[in-house]
């Protein structure tokens, strides 16, 4: 189900915790699985649960509790825009409007060609650099301006 490289990464995560606490690696294992497969299907979650000797429902609880896991397929580029108050004060609403107009989708939607998914995010702990967004969960783009947004989107293939 997962590539050898992903399994190796999970195995590395496992070294961080006491041997009888394999479940501690579930968050990173789900992240690693999602990074490889794009989203977390039930089968993937079950696989991860088995790999870590934990009940599948317990892994599912984790996958549904944390916002950054995708339990349904998303576009190749998932853009999560922080709209919380500090970012909002610094112009996030305009950036949101602009992204939505340009992509023709609202928050929580994916473009028909599967290229973009737009999500509304909560505080990312970088408020002073807002407005900002997260690309595919792992790359932050800050100081967004009406001018920079177009190019940012176009550069995402």
């Amino acid at each position, binding site marked *: 189900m997962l590539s050898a490289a992903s399994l190796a990464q999970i195995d590395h995560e496992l070294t961080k915790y006491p041997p009888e606490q394999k479940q501690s690696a579930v968050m990173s294992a789900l992240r690693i699985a999602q990074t490889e497969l794009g989203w977390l299907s039930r089968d993937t979650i079950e696989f991860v649960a088995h790999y870590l000797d934990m009940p599948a429902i317990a892994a599912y609880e984790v996958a549904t509790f944390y916002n950054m896991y995708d339990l349904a397929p998303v576009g190749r580029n998932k853009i999560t825009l922080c709209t919380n108050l500090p970012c909002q004060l610094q112009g996030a609403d305009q950036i949101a409007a602009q992204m939505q107009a340009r992509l023709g989708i609202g928050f929580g939607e994916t473009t028909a060609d599967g290229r973009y998914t737009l999500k509304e995010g909560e505080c990312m702990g970088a408020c002073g650099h807002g407005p900002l967004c997260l690309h595919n969960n*792992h790359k932050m783009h800050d100081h967004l301006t009406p001018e920079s947004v177009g190019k940012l989107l176009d550069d995402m293939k």
Partner: protein
Amino acid sequence: MSLNTPDTQICLWTLGFDHPASLATYTANGGYEALRNILAEKTPAEDIIAQVKISALRGRGGAGFPTGLKWSFMPRSFPGDKYIVCNTDEGEPGTFKDRDIVRFNPHQLIEGMIIAGYTLGAVAGYNYIHGEIYEEYQSWEAALEEARAAGLLGRNILGSGWDFDLHAHHGYGAYICGEETALLESIEGKKGQPRFKPPFPASYGLYGKPTTINNTETLASIPWILRHGGQAFLELGKPNNGGSKIFSISGHVNKPGNYEIPLGTPFADLLAMAGGVRTGHTLKAVIPGGSSAPVLPAEVMMSLTMDFDAISRAGSMLGSGAVIVMDDSVCMVKALERLSYFYFEESCGQCTPCREGTGWLYRIIHRIEQGQGRPEDIDELLRIGKNIGGNTICALGEAAVGPVASFVKHFRSEFEYHIEHKRCQVGMSPSDKVGG
């Protein structure tokens, strides 16, 4: 003394260097000296805790709890493993200081955690890193490798015969994991739902073992305190409010960013450092300590100094030192609506008042913002808030109520205007966007 320069900087002093995050930069400027001394002299844990107590270092994570006192709660002669945990789950809206410490001075945090581990008798430490800052998670892991390679972590640290290791645990999108016991649950691979206290982490923490949890900035301050002495740290700030503190200023200022200045600095000075209120506007209100802190009107704020005691006397809290500045363009209903949505969205859902109450609060505020409010709604908000506050497992309940109560207290007329006129007093119709 000039502010926000190496004179006053405890944690962010590496910023002026070419490679601020590197081990070389850190060691060339006295880094790991405190640790070396401790290991060489086998400094007794009590002596370290005594210095931390003298420093009047108060937790930088939000509650401002005295760190030395917290450390003294850890059981000395516990037979099994103990842990030290660093809280870098910075998710309180407005706060962005810990990310910069991890980015620009990871080794000082590592040193602080090692010293804490030594002092508290821990076998290992975990740094819980906010889900949305993956790059910092990776760079901190790299810094750990660097430290490990230099013999600063792992077996027989610096030839002392003492073993200790540090690991990063990455969050994945849940504000509540900043709450210390939710964070522990999360490290255990569960949903991040806070535990009822007692028992406190010092007796039943990670994997049920005694555990101390501190904020990133708190732990990163430790090497400085031990190098310069607790008294020097205390003297940087003011009594009961030792040291400098990073203030993260966001919102309507010309130069948002982190400013590391002594506790007790007047708010006006901080505002000036941040370039003042957005040009062309006047100051309306400030949330002085992260979104959970009650909002204060401009005139109150301008008379305050930035320290735990002063802000608390004014009816708010210094919290994490996140200062959200709002100018005269802000509709307070709209601003509160966004914050209420946040708490509703981030409630972990386990305890009844928070799970049910945060949604109820948000829906009423949303209605008012949309021009659908009813005259009784404002008192209803306060009544619901009273039923949440103090009745929940963790402080998220109170955090959700604080903004509501304070926004209504200081800006009630705006809410009334919204309800009566079905539009915004600040000039825009309810659906118009605020900010910019």
